[in-house]
């Protein structure tokens, strides 16, 4: 659906995007994960046709986005990072305005506004001014404004910044619904939990470069770190450790009363049974999953939120 090839963009002396390439398949949710300033928004701006690249090409549904920007604009919907709405207009008036820019006939537009407001759960507040909305509600209208022309692809630039968990969940549900209806979604964020929940495939971007891409399991295979469980016991003697190492060969480290076992969560019950057999009293259990945060840390030596 989207092919990005050798894309580069610099602003004065800053290389914002540096020779990146990726492909997004039809109907998938593709995550662009990276810390602030990594080049996510610049990439999305180029894909949205409002920023010219210095080098490289973008093809949207087979069309070169630079040569066919007008057609591409009809194919894509963009949810900007900012709440790009007129605060002194109602939700309905905002949607009427944004929809009108795409030349949608009035009657059809009104029907689409109705269904879109229903989808985002704000039909009953349509006459209220945007400035009276909560941050989460504004974010939902921000999404609705990008859907009215029925785009095939939706670009979402950090659409959940600064909102409460309830609104965030609501937005996730909307995204999942849209995806089930066949919409291809490109989602940028620096929240790895969001990518883990929503995205089929992910590209990790840092300092303008894609450092890894693939499905979550493919990304996990890239790093040496394995999932582990850390047990803390009330008391742990040297002999207990020896016994455990014999019974659980994947036990890797011990520190005072703590023991690190390299295993998956599926193996947890087996480890607990072994501990019970040795009459060891477990004080605390901590699961160390190999998540995208860990992958990012492993690949860049930095935290995602640095």
């Amino acid at each position, binding site marked *: 659906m989207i092919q990005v090839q050798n894309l580069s963009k610099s602003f004065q002396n800053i290389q914002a995007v540096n020779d990146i390439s990726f492909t997004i398949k039809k109907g998938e949710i593709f995550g662009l994960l990276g810390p602030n300033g990594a080049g996510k928004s610049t990439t999305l701006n180029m894909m949205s046709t*409002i920023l010219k690249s210095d080098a490289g090409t973008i093809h949207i549904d087979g069309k070169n986005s630079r040569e066919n920007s007008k057609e591409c*604009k009809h194919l894509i919907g963009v949810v*900007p990072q900012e709440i790009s*709405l007129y605060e002194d207009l109602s939700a309905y008036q905002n949607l009427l305005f944004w929809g009108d820019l*795409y030349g949608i006939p009035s009657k059809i537009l009104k029907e689409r506004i109705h269904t879109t407001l229903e989808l985002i759960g704000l039909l009953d507040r349509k006459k209220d001014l945007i400035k009276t909305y909560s941050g989460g509600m504004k974010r939902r209208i921000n999404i609705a*404004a990008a859907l009215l022309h029925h785009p095939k692809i939706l670009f979402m630039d950090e659409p959940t910044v600064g909102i409460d968990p309830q609104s965030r969940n609501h937005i996730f549900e909307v995204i999942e619904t849209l995806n089930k209806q066949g919409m291809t979604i490109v989602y940028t964020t620096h929240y790895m939990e969001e990518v883990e929940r929503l995205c089929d495939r992910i590209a990790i971007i840092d300092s303008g470069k894609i450092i890894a891409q693939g499905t979550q399991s493919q990304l996990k295979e890239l790093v040496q770190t394995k999932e582990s469980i850390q047990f803390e016991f009330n008391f742990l003697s040297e002999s207990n450790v020896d016994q455990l190492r014999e019974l659980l060969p994947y036990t890797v480290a011990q520190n005072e009363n703590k023991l690190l076992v390299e295993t998956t969560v599926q193996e947890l019950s087996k480890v607990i049974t072994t501990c019970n057999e040795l009459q060891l009293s477990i004080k605390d259990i901590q699961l160390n999953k190999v998540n995208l945060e860990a992958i990012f840390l492993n690949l860049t030596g930095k935290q995602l939120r640095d």
Partner: protein
Amino acid sequence: MIFTILRKDLRLYFSDKKGILVTFLLPIIMITLFAFAFGGVGKKKSPPKPLKVLVVDKDATTASQELIAKLNSIKTIQLITSEEEKAVDLVRKGKNIAALIFEKGFSDAVAADTDLPIELKYDAARDFQMRIIHSVLKEGFKYHLGKVDVINNIKLKTTSLIKESSTKAHPGLVQAVGGTAIMMLLFSIAAIGGGLLDEKEAGTLKRLLIAPVKPLYILLAKMGTAMVVSILQLSAMFVFAWLAFGLPIFMDVFSLILLILCISFAVSSFGVFLVSTVKTRQQLQGMSTIIIILMSAIGGSMIPINMMPAFMQKIAIISVNYWGIEGFFDIFWRQLPLIAMLPKMGILLAIGLGMTLVSTVLFKKNIIAIE
């Protein structure tokens, strides 16, 4: 504690360069402008430029020619020989202040010691300068003819070429309404143009660019909004002046509508031009205050243009205010036919068009550049 807060406030204040410009540079420029306008500058070094008066010698005798030559030696005035028809037309159109007509029989009247057939035809809209000319000429006649006013009863007949009447506005009212309306309009329109910067900061401009809309249309739509507001504001100002002060707005309503449209176009383009030259609201605020006040000062919104020295009157033509105010004088005072006003309207349209073209280039560079 107070000192700490004071020091912080001063530091913040002096870090705002535009604020400093408005605080110090703008008053300095205004003082300079007013000083020139009211004639308080350079008195010792160079005398003020003489006021130009057209002179028509229909008598064409040695007596009249000698007197004209003597009057021309007065430093306050400069006599320019002309034909009567042309001179009257120039005064009527506001291009000259007055025309001094020596009627036939002047030399006979001098010899017979009777009333002199001299007439000073003037533009009453330039009352201030006319009074100076009248006073200087009267004194000149007394001095050069060697006669004393009280004994010989020398009279200098003065005739306003444009008569005040119940259907005509007083030039002071035209100046007050026209000058103020255009100056205030410039401020309103700069604020509307600033909406583009608000849209940029809020992100709605980015969304507009994402939509299948040409960037030029965004600029033109904003200019259209400014123009509608301009038309409404100017119309409201003139309706108010009609209701409150009796300004005869229905005297030549077609010309008035056309002039309002031309001024609105020029002012709206000026608004988008201002916005296109800056990148933030703060920059716009500082810049628009300085430019609008300067333009209004030199363009005749604050001080009547004819009170300004000649070089400032020449500079005035770069401002929208000047052409607008002159247009209002043409309608309400000089009562010129539409055809005579068309050049001024054309200049307003040309100013508007020029600024629109420059704005489109700057708009792409400064406003819609996405980073």
